[in-house]
């Protein structure tokens, strides 16, 4: 198959590219930009004039709920949602049921993903056996099975000592450790940010220190062990500041933020809105602004969806009794592009946070349109609006607080390995 994407505005931060050009695709890879290779006869042309063409989006954190929670979502349903949203590579945390702590689960996820729509799915392995926090997982076996890193997901470790051992062991296998900076004892039974809103609503609060204390400890152990650490889902300005300082000091750490943390605050919880129940919680306006600044400065280099699809029942209960999480694949690109509209990032920076940076953290040769690379591509019509609502929602989880918002820009095509896996029907 030979495919030509003509005259789009190519934005590829990995190549420092932002100009109108055409992309020539043969089999599964980009073979040339601008000028056609000799004898290139495309079987299909996509007219991208006036469109934005970016590398396929790499989402660092999406729960697909399979295996074990297929009543919430499946690999098939969520990769379909991802494809409609321009996402071509997904990384899923190990907290499935059973957790991804042996090659069997990795193989199952890989197999199911191959049977699905084509979006590439990579699993993280469990840092500890069964994510129990008290015994190391067989990381070498997990690595052979294909995991791109290890993570404790949202489960506590039994001790700092065990975390140290796990980080050392991961380092010897050259595995990146993905850690959520959450001190679970300080988190206690909290379900909202500890601040004036939580106080008024009488909801148990989660202090800022639950994040900064855990982060301080992780940074100290990173320095001690030398392992590469990726810090997952920062929620406070102070934590973002600590990460910036650690990176300036040369520590091998990177960090991401969930897109919703850059838009919502604890004020959005103020009417007991269970759709805004997330972990870590939505914080103050000051935190939101600090996180935006950290993304602009590059200290937080990745924006991810933190996709957590739920069945309706889990959100239909009094706030503290509901499960945290947002169904977020379909709002990742729209929210990130809105940061450009709001002047937080320029377009290149925004695209980098969604493509080259997460690809580098996963060590995958994706997130670029450079010739020789797999042709994972997202095409957007920036003159069209996108207004998510139940009628056009694809994910099985409908737990989004963004229904009713209108975004500028709409995904028209998604390609994985040179194959069009999603095409928006023209009205």
């Amino acid at each position: 198959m030979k495919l030509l994407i003509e005259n789009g505005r190519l934005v590829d931060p990995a190549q420092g590219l932002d100009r109108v050009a055409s992309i020539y695709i043969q089999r599964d890879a980009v073979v040339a930009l601008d000028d056609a290779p000799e004898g290139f006869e495309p079987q299909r042309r996509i007219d991208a004039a006036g469109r934005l063409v970016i590398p396929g989006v790499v989402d660092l954190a999406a729960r697909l709920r399979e295996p074990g929670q297929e009543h919430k979502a499946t690999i098939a349903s969520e990769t379909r949602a991802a494809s409609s949203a321009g996402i071509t590579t997904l990384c899923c945390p190990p907290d499935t049921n059973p957790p991804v702590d042996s090659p069997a689960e990795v193989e199952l996820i890989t197999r199911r993903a191959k049977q699905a729509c084509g979006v590439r799915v990579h699993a993280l392995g469990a840092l500890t056996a069964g994510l129990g926090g008290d015994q190391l997982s067989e990381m070498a076996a997990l690595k052979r099975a294909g995991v791109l890193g290890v993570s404790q997901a949202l489960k506590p470790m039994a001790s700092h000592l065990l975390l140290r051992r796990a980080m050392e062991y991961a380092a010897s296998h050259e595995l990146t450790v993905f850690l959520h900076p959450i001190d679970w004892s300080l988190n206690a039974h909290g379900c909202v940010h500890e601040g004036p809103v939580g106080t008024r609503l009488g909801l148990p609060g989660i202090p800022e220190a639950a994040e900064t204390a855990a982060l301080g400890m992780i940074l100290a152990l990173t320095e001690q062990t030398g392992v590469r650490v990726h810090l997952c889902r920062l929620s406070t300005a102070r934590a973002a500041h600590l990460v910036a300082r650690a990176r300036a000091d040369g520590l091998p750490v990177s960090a991401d933020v969930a897109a919703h943390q850059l838009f919502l605050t604890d004020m959005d919880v103020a009417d007991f809105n269970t759709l805004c129940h997330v972990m870590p919680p939505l914080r103050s306006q000051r935190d939101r602004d600090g996180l935006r600044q950290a993304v602009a400065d590059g200290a937080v280099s990745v924006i991810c969806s933190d996709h957590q699809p739920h069945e309706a029942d889990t959100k239909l209960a009094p706030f503290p009794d509901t499960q945290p999480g947002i169904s977020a694949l379909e709002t990742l690109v729209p929210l990130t592009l809105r940061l450009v509209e709001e002047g937080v990032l320029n377009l290149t920076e925004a695209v980098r946070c969604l493509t080259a940076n997460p690809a580098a953290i996963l060590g995958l040769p994706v997130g670029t349109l450079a010739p020789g690379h797999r042709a994972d591509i997202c095409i957007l019509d920036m003159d069209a609006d996108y207004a998510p609502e139940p009628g056009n929602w694809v994910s099985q989880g409908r737990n989004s607080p963004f229904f009713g918002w209108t975004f500028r820009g709409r995904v028209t095509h998604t390609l994985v390995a040179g194959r069009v896996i999603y095409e928006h029907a023209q009205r």
Partner: protein
Amino acid sequence: MSSSIQTSPLIPAPGPLPASLQFTDEGRLQHLLTIEGLSHALITEILDTAESFASMNAKSVKKVPLLRGKTVVNLFFEASTRTRTTFELAAKRLSADVLNINISTSATVKGESLLDTLRNLEAMYVDMFVVRHQASGAAHFIARHVASHVAVLNAGDGRHAHPTQALLDMFTIRRHKGDFSALRVAIVGDILHSRVARSQIHALNILNTGEIRVIAPQSLLPAHVESLGVHVYNDIRAGLRDVDVVIMLRLQRERMEAGLLPSEHEFFQLYGLTQERLALANPGCLVMHPGPANRGVEIDSRVADGPQSVILEQVTYGIAVRMAVMSMIMGGGLTQ
């Protein structure tokens, strides 16, 4: 993408703010969920209505036919004797039929969701749910999802609100002190976990109370408590000086286990209301407690039973205030 796809049920948008959820489009009170958002005039009207029921309650025939034919369900997900009993008496004195359902030992244990429980009761054509639940926001959740003909009265949700308790406290204070703007009111003890304190603070602020103080160690105060409109005191001696009303809160034993306090003994030493400490307040200072009081933990028996104590009056007035709220919500006619 077809726009006709409709698969799993939709999670309803959260809708109106907690305060506005209580009113109909015409501004009539349709639920009572929180004190927040009520107007000075509305609270005054509730207290005035309660005044007429209070004099009636002292008579030998205590029943009026205002809610004849209506069915009130006391839906208690958390143990309570006092509050449930006064709600039951209030409803009966208004001639309503009353059903008491103690959910902590029935449906939810069998795995039935709160919404299922609600739907089943709704199907029996009841008119009002009086709800107590351990989760903050439970009454709002129920009000948001209940059929439109059913009223919801919050009898305490988590740490969030206990509006009728606050109203009966205001009723008690007004009977004794009259104008709120000249008063200093101190609330002492476990503010952090107290829905009573939050509702009292809102009510006192709406009634333009001169000064509201909270007195507690930092570990029993919620974060940014001053944002509720109170002055904070860690020292009870300084906090009680010149106050006109002191409200003691119940201290639960779990607080010691959670590491918020070392012991009941030390709490009483530092924050217990004794005669000697009460003497620091203005003469005639009222002593109040939402009950049940822990004698020797937050309050000395001589103070609880002393001449300045109005603790039992609070219980008596609780019936009149709850009658007022129930009749105003179900009887109609009240506007904000």
